[in-house]
C-alpha cells in the first residue's frame, strides 16, 4: 500500500458521522457517501477495473465528468497503482492524437457520450464506459501487453499541461507532490475535521485533485463536489449544506459576486480559496465584503501544487501569499522593480514530462524549474505579474497559443498566422492575399477547428494580419 492510500485509509477510519463526499447536482439535488460506503464503492470499482484488465502499471486515460463515480475511479486506480491520465472531454483530434501517441495509455475510461469521439484512438486498448445510469461496462478488456514498463511506485497520475511550445505534455505527479500539496494547503486553510469544502471545478485539474479531493480526504473535511456552476444553485447550497470553505477560480467567484443579492448572508462561510488565474485587488475586497469571508489566493502549476498561498489570518490582496514550506522560489534577472521570471525548486516537484525528456530538460535548468511566469516579492509575499510563455489562462485552463496557431495553419490557405489575445478573446491574424475573402475564410477555419481542438481554444475572430 502506498503512503497516500495508507493515509486515506487512516483518515477514513477515524472519519465520524459527516459525509466524506457530497455531490451537488444542477438542480441543487444532493447525493452523499460516508466512509464505509466510499470504501465499499472503491473495492467494487477495483474489481470492475481488474475485470477490465486494468491493474498495476496500466496507464489509463480518463474522460469523465465530475461525479462521485469519478472520485471512486480515481481512488480505485490509485489503490491498484495504475496511473490515471487526466484528460478533458473538450479535447478533439489534435490533443487526443498527442495523448494517445505520447502518453500511450493502455486503457480508457470514458463517459458513453464521449466514446464516438474516442473510437479512432481507443482501438486496441482497453475500454470501460460509464453509462448514463452510472453503470460501468467493460467494452474491451485491457490486454496484458498494454501494461507500461518502467512505471515508478512514486507516480500517482499524469496531468496534461502546456508550456507554450505547441504540444500538450503529460506532467508526472508524484506521491510526494500530492502529500506535500495537501499538507501546505491545509496549513493555510487551517480547517478542522467536520468542516466542509465546496468546489465547482473539474476533477481533471491538479489544483482540484490536490486542493479539493485529497486535502479534504486527508484532513477530515466533507468535500462537496458541485457538478454545476449555476450561481443560484451554488449560492443556495452555501446555506442548505452549511458550506465552510469554497475552492474555485477567480472567474467563478466573479460570477458568484455578480449574482449575490445585497444583504444576503451566509452564516457558515469562512474562506474562499482561489487560484488558477489572477485575482485583482478590487475583486479580493469585494468578495471579502459581500460574503464576509477571508480570501486565500494562491499560485501553483501542474508541476508544483501549490508554490505559494495566502494563509488564514495573514492574507494580503494582490499577492499569492508566502512561498509554501518545502518550496524555494527565486526571481531570475530581476528588473528595477524586482520583477523577473519565477524559478522554483522543491523536493516535492513533478517527476518530469512523461516520454518528453527534451521538454523536461528545457524546463529544469541548474536545478531550478523555469515557470515562464513573471513575478516579484512584496515583502515576504509573492506577487504573480503575468505569463511570459506563449500561453493564456482562460477560466483557469491553459491555452497554448502556439498549438492554436499550428491548428489554424493546418486549416487555412494563409501562408502564416499569429494568435493573440484581445480583451478576453483569442484572435487569429492571417497572412493571406487580398484575393481571399477573409470572412469566408474565418467561417471555414472555425468550422474545421471544431473537429481539431477544444472549443474554448477556437479563435473567436479571424482577421487579415
Amino acid at each position, binding site marked *: 500500500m502506498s503512503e497516500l492510500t495508507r493515509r486515506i485509509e487512516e483518515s477514513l477510519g477515524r472519519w465520524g458521522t459527516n459525509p466524506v463526499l457530497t455531490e451537488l447536482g*444542477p*438542480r441543487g439535488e444532493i447525493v452523499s457517501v460516508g466512509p464505509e460506503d466510499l470504501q465499499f464503492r472503491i473495492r467494487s470499482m477495483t474489481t470492475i477495473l481488474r475485470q477490465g484488465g486494468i491493474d498495476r502499471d496500466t496507464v489509463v486515460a480518463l474522460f469523465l465528468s465530475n461525479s462521485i463515480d469519478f472520485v471512486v475511479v480515481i481512488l480505485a486506480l490509485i489503490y491498484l497503482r495504475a496511473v490515471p491520465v487526466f484528460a478533458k472531454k473538450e479535447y478533439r483530434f489534435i490533443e487526443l492524437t498527442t495523448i494517445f501517441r505520447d502518453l500511450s495509455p493502455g486503457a480508457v475510461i470514458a463517459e458513453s457520450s464521449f466514446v464516438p469521439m474516442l473510437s479512432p484512438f481507443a482501438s486496441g486498448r482497453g475500454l470501460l464506459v460509464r453509462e448514463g445510469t452510472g453503470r460501468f461496462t467493460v467494452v474491451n478488456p485491457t490486454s496484458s501487453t498494454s501494461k507500461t514498463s518502467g512505471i515508478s511506485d512514486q507516480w500517482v497520475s499524469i496531468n496534461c499541461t502546456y508550456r507554450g511550445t505547441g504540444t500538450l505534455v503529460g506532467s508526472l505527479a508524484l506521491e510526494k507532490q500530492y502529500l506535500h500539496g495537501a499538507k501546505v494547503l491545509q496549513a493555510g486553510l487551517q480547517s478542522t475535521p467536520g468542516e466542509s469544502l465546496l468546489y465547482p471545478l473539474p476533477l481533471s485539474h491538479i489544483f482540484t485533485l490536490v486542493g479539493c479531493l485529497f486535502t479534504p480526504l486527508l484532513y477530515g473535511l466533507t468535500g462537496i463536489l458541485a457538478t454545476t456552476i449555476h*450561481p443560484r444553485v451554488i449560492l443556495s447550497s452555501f446555506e442548505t449544506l452549511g458550506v465552510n470553505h469554497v475552492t474555485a477560480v477567480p472567474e467563478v467567484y466573479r*460570477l458568484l459576486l455578480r449574482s449575490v443579492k445585497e444583504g444576503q448572508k451566509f452564516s457558515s462561510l469562512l474562506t474562499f480559496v482561489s487560484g488558477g488565474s489572477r485575482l485583482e485587488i478590487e475583486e479580493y475586497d469585494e468578495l471579502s465584503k459581500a460574503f464576509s469571508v477571508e480570501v486565500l489566493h494562491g499560485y501553483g502549476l501542474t508541476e508544483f501544487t501549490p508554490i505559494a498561498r495566502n494563509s488564514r489570518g495573514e492574507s494580503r490582496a494582490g499577492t499569492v501569499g508566502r512561498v509554501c514550506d518545502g518550496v524555494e522560489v527565486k526571481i531570475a534577472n530581476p528588473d528595477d522593480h524586482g520583477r523577473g521570471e519565477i524559478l522554483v525548486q522543491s523536493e516535492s516537484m513533478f517527476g518530469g514530462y512523461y516520454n518528453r525528456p527534451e521538454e523536461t530538460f528545457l524546463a529544469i535548468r541548474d536545478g531550478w524549474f523555469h515557470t515562464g511566469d513573471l513575478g516579484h516579492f512584496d515583502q515576504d509575499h509573492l506577487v504573480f505579474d503575468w505569463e511570459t510563455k506563449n500561453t493564456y489562462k482562460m477560466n483557469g485552463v491553459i491555452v497554448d497559443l502556439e498549438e492554436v496557431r499550428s491548428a489554424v495553419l493546418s486549416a487555412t490557405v494563409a501562408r502564416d498566422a499569429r494568435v493573440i489575445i484581445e480583451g478576453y478573446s483569442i484572435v487569429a491574424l492571417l497572412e493571406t492575399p487580398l484575393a481571399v475573402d477573409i470572412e469566408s475564410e474565418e467561417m471555414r477555419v472555425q468550422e474545421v477547428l471544431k473537429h481539431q481542438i477544444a*472549443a474554448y481554444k477556437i479563435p473567436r475572430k479571424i482577421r487579415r494580419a
Partner: protein
Amino acid sequence: MDNPSREKIESVVSRISRIPKSEFADDVLIREELGIDSLMAMEIVATLEREFSIEIDETEMFDIQTVGEFSQFVEARIRKSHG
C-alpha cells in the same frame, strides 16, 4: 425586431459576451461560433433569471445548440412563469 422579450434576451447575451447583436442569427452556433463557454453561459442564465424573475434549469439546456433555440427556450420559460 418586434418581440420585446427576444430583444431583452439578446441584449443580455450581447452585454455579457461582448458580441454585437448583429451576429445573433437564429442558426448561429452558441459555443462554436459565438465562443460562449460554460462560465459565460451561466452568467447569461443568472442574469436572465434576475431580469425576468424566472428559474432556468441547466439540465434542460444541454441540447440547445443555436441562438434561435436558446431564445425560444427562454421565451417559453418567461411565458410559463408569467402566464
